[in-house]
Each structure stands twice: as C-alpha cells, then as structure tokens.
C-alpha cells in the first residue's frame, strides 16, 4: 500500500493536520485519546471531508481539494472496523457478513464468504441475531464483514479496546491470520503500545492534532524506555513446544527456552519483562533459573539509574534492564560475552 496524505480539517476548536507519505502493509496510528487518530480515519474513509489538501491511495486520488475530487465512502474501497463493531442489529450474523459482499462488484470479489467463516470460526454463529454475541464474537463478525468487501485498505479503530485482556489475545491471532492470508494492507489505530508491537511494522505517531513522526514500531517501543518508571517488554515469538519433564521446551531461533506455560500454536507470543533477566559474568554451575543463555553485549545505554543492555542470543535479540552498579561489577562493554539467566516462570503468554 502506498498512501500519500496532506490534509487539514477544523472541527470546532480542534485543528487537525496531517502530512505524510508511507508505504507498507501493516501500519499503526499511535497516540493518546483525543489526539486526532479517529479524525484521520474518518478523513481517509470519506466519512469526513477535509477542508483542504489531498489523499491518494496507491494510484487513485480519493480527495483533492483543488481539483474538487471527493470520492464518496462507498467508492473508496476502504474498509473500516469500528471500535464498537456497529453490527446491524436488525440482521442476523449471516446477513451482516454478506451486506458488503453483495454490494461489491463481481470483478472485485476475490474472497469467498466460506473461507472467512472458516478462518474466523463463525460457522456456528451464522443464524444468530447479533445482539446475543459476546464482545469478541462481535469484533470477529465486524472484521469478516469488512474483509468480504475486498477492500484495498482496512482501517481498524481501536478494535480491541473494551475487550478484556484475555479476549484481546484470543482475537489477535485471528487478526494476524486473516491479514497474512488475504494480504490486505492494514492501518491499525490504537493507544496501546503492546497492540502496536503485535500488529504493525511501522507507526505514525499522532499528537495534539497532527502526525508528528513516522518510525518502525520496534523503534517506538524502545524510545518509550527513556520515560521514567517505564520498562521494556521483550516479545518473544516461540515455535511449537515439546515436553521437557514437567515443563515445556520451545525453539527460539537456534536456542531452546524452558517455560512452565504450555501453548499449542505453531507460533506463540510470550512477553518477558526486561527487569526479570539476570546477567552473570561466567556460567554459574547451578541455579534455580531454567534458562541460561550465552549472549554477546551489542549495545549499552544509560538513563539515570537504569542501564539498557541489548544482547545478541544466537540469531535473536534480547533487552535487559539493570542498574549502573551491576554494569561496573560485571565489567560490561560492547562485544563482551555474558550469560543471561531467565526463570521458566518469567514468561507470560500473550497469544
């Protein structure tokens, strides 16, 4: 997807302006509530008309104030998954799913309803009224409904906000599998850094009514580390587990990690707080921690009384947070070999 935006919009006392040019499949729109994320989404979808400027998606001009171009929402082929799903309450799940599909010209339909029903596990819900669905089911139907219009771009407006923690991580695998299977570009709106890191590759940072920066998601995650009382969370993508005594052994790059928690997917995402990792100068003979990884220090970065250590563990990277005193005692410097000790119970399963 190639998206070129240069727009201005005044809404009461709120001024919004955006000026960016991006290329990518999974882009995040990150910023606090009230910063203008949703305004930008409405402008892109055609639900709000910019005061001036232009919007171009791939080679199609969606809006051009000077030339008087303003495609109505139904001609933009931009799908929107709203925060509150907005399923049509007078229709069954099936009719909701097919609402957009029936209105999509045959030559644009390259996704079959059957495959969506299968991927999103909706078969048992088809004949139900939408008022009886749970929060997670509603979002799945809303997502399916939007994807069936075979859009050129999908906007998701905080689709996970309002769902409880557990449900969130149940939905995200669906999102990931749908977007990788059908290869639809995604613009994901959220104020949650964790969601951003799980769903997107690069982000636009929106603050106080304008798009401030554009960067890789991981870069954003590491930049927040400098703020006081913020810690960094490592996201580890582990392969399928094998039993290891009464624990589980997961492949991670070219090493294996021992965890207490079991997961049954091909790819499992776990979080690991940077403060839960201990560093040793030499290999300790015996410790209660089940994982002892030989790593090389790539980079050291000190802020106040915290040091961020970037480690290279085989083909993967790990970020550890320690205090300056430890750094001096361990004589840490770039290129030095250390051993990282992680308890089997320190990992928390996300999805």
């Amino acid at each position, binding site marked *: 997807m190639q998206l070129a935006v240069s727009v201005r919009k005044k809404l009461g006392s709120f001024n919004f302006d955006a000026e960016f040019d991006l290329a990518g499949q999974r882009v995040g729109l990150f910023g606090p509530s009230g910063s203008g994320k949703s305004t930008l989404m409405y402008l892109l979808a055609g639900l709000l008309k910019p005061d001036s400027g232009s919007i171009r998606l791939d080679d199609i001009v969606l809006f051009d104030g000077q030339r008087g171009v303003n495609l109505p929402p*139904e001609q933009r082929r931009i799908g*929107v998954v709203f925060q509150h799903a907005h399923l049509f309450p007078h229709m069954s799940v099936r009719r909701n799913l097919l609402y957009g599909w029936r209105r999509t010209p045959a030559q644009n339909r390259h996704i079959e309803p059957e495959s969506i029903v299968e991927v999103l596990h909706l078969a048992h819900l088809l004949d139900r009224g939408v008022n009886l669905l749970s929060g997670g089911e509603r979002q799945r139907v809303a997502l399916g409904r939007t994807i069936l219009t075979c859009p050129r771009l999908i906007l998701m407006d905080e689709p996970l906000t309002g769902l409880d923690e557990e449900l969130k991580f149940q939905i995200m695998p669906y999102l990931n599998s749908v977007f990788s299977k059908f290869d639809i570009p995604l613009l994901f709106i959220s104020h949650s850094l964790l969601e951003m890191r799980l769903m997107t590759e690069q982000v636009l940072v929106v603050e106080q009514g304008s798009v401030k920066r554009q960067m890789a998601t991981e870069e954003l995650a590491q930049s927040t580390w400098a703020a006081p009382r913020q810690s960094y969370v490592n996201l580890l993508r582990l392969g399928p587990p094998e039993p290891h005594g009464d624990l589980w052994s997961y492949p991670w790059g070219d090493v294996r990690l021992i965890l207490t928690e079991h997961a049954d997917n091909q790819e499992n995402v776990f979080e690991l707080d940077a403060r839960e990792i201990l560093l040793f100068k030499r290999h300790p003979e015996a410790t209660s921690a089940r994982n002892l990884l030989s790593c090389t220090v790539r980079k050291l970065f000190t802020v106040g009384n915290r040091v961020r250590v970037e480690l290279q563990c085989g083909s993967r990277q790990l970020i550890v947070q320690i205090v300056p005193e430890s750094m001096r005692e361990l004589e840490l410097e770039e290129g030095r070999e250390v051993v990282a000790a992680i308890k089997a119970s320190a990992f928390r399963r996300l999805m």
Partner: protein
Amino acid sequence: MFLLQPSDLDAIQLSFKVACAATLLSTPVGIGVAYLLVHTRIPGKSLIEGAVNLPLVLPPVVIGYLLLVLFGRRGLIGSWLLEYNIQVIFTLTGAIIASAVVGFPLLVRSIRLGMESVDPSYRRAARTLGASGWDAFFTVTLPLSGKAVFAGMTLMFARSLGEFGATIILAGNIPGVTQTIPLAIYEYTSTPGGDRMALSLCLVSIVLSFIVLLISGAASKSLDRK
C-alpha cells in the same frame, strides 16, 4: 340494546376505508418529510416543520375550511383537478384528504423521533461497506426506525377513525358516501330519539379503538423481539 342499522354498517366500513387509505397514502410521504427534516440541511427547514405541524394545533374546522377553499370548484387545486373530471369535495376522496392532513403531523413526528434515535454510526458503517446514501437509508436507517414508523401509522389510523371537523366541512355528511362513524353519531344525536343508536355506535367506536391499541401493542412487542 345493541342495535346497528344497515347505514351504521356502511359508516363502519367507510371509517375503515378512509383511515386505511389516509394512513397508507401518507406513510411514504411521511417518511420522505421525516428524512428531509432529519438528514438534510435544506434552507427553510423550520418553515417546513411549522407547516407540517400546523394541523396539530389548528382547529380541524379551520383545516377543513382551508381545504375546501383549496379544493373547491374555483380553488387552486380544485379547478385544476376539475379539468381531469376529478371532484374532491363531498366525496370519499375528500374524506381521505381531510383525514390525511389532520393525521399527518402525528405520523411525521413519530417517524422523525425514530430516525433521530438511530445511531448514525450504523449508516456510516453501511457506507464504508459499499452502500450509497440511499441504499444505507433504505436498508439500515429505515428498518431500524421501523417501530417508530409503525407507531406513527397506528396513531394516524386512530386519529383518522375519529376525524370529524375537517371531514364534515370538506366531504360533508352523506350517508353511504362520506358518513363515517363520528359523523353518523353526530347525526343520531341531532335527531330526536337517536340516543340509543348513538350509544351503540359509541360502543363500536370504543371496541375499534381498543382493537387498534391491542394490535399496535402486539406488533411493537414482536418488533422488539427481533
């Protein structure tokens, strides 16, 4: 005590005809006007709103008289209709027009409230799914305000059953042609010894109104269940 003359049966039948015709003919127009008031930004909206609501506050007799002026042989519309050999005054058409005009504000007010209470997000969602503005209106907004449309129709139907003032002026009181239940009762009460007949018709009127209420209650319940 329950005595109904053949002419009473005519009156009951006529009342039904007039109320049904007035309601069914007005509903599409009512939906259109409600749409204009809710979804568009046309100039003079408050004037349209005033004109629509005027029959609600004007005495029905005044409306009847204005309609008579308008539809009379020398009236603005009447003289034009005469060229096509259509006569409105003292006919069933006149009774239907009188009922429609008097009941119209009730219909529009109800539909409008219903449409305003439909979350605009549904319409936006429909637009992003590829529906044009009209498509979204007919497949989302209108069905979601269905209950309000039905409530408005019921109100209007009941109002038409009871219409008296405008009807007697525009359509007269001709048994078998324009004499609806209220007009028949009026005639009985002004005839010596007609009290019992008037009372029987009153009873019919009460039963009919009650049935309308029951049907509207049941229908709105079944709409709720959906």
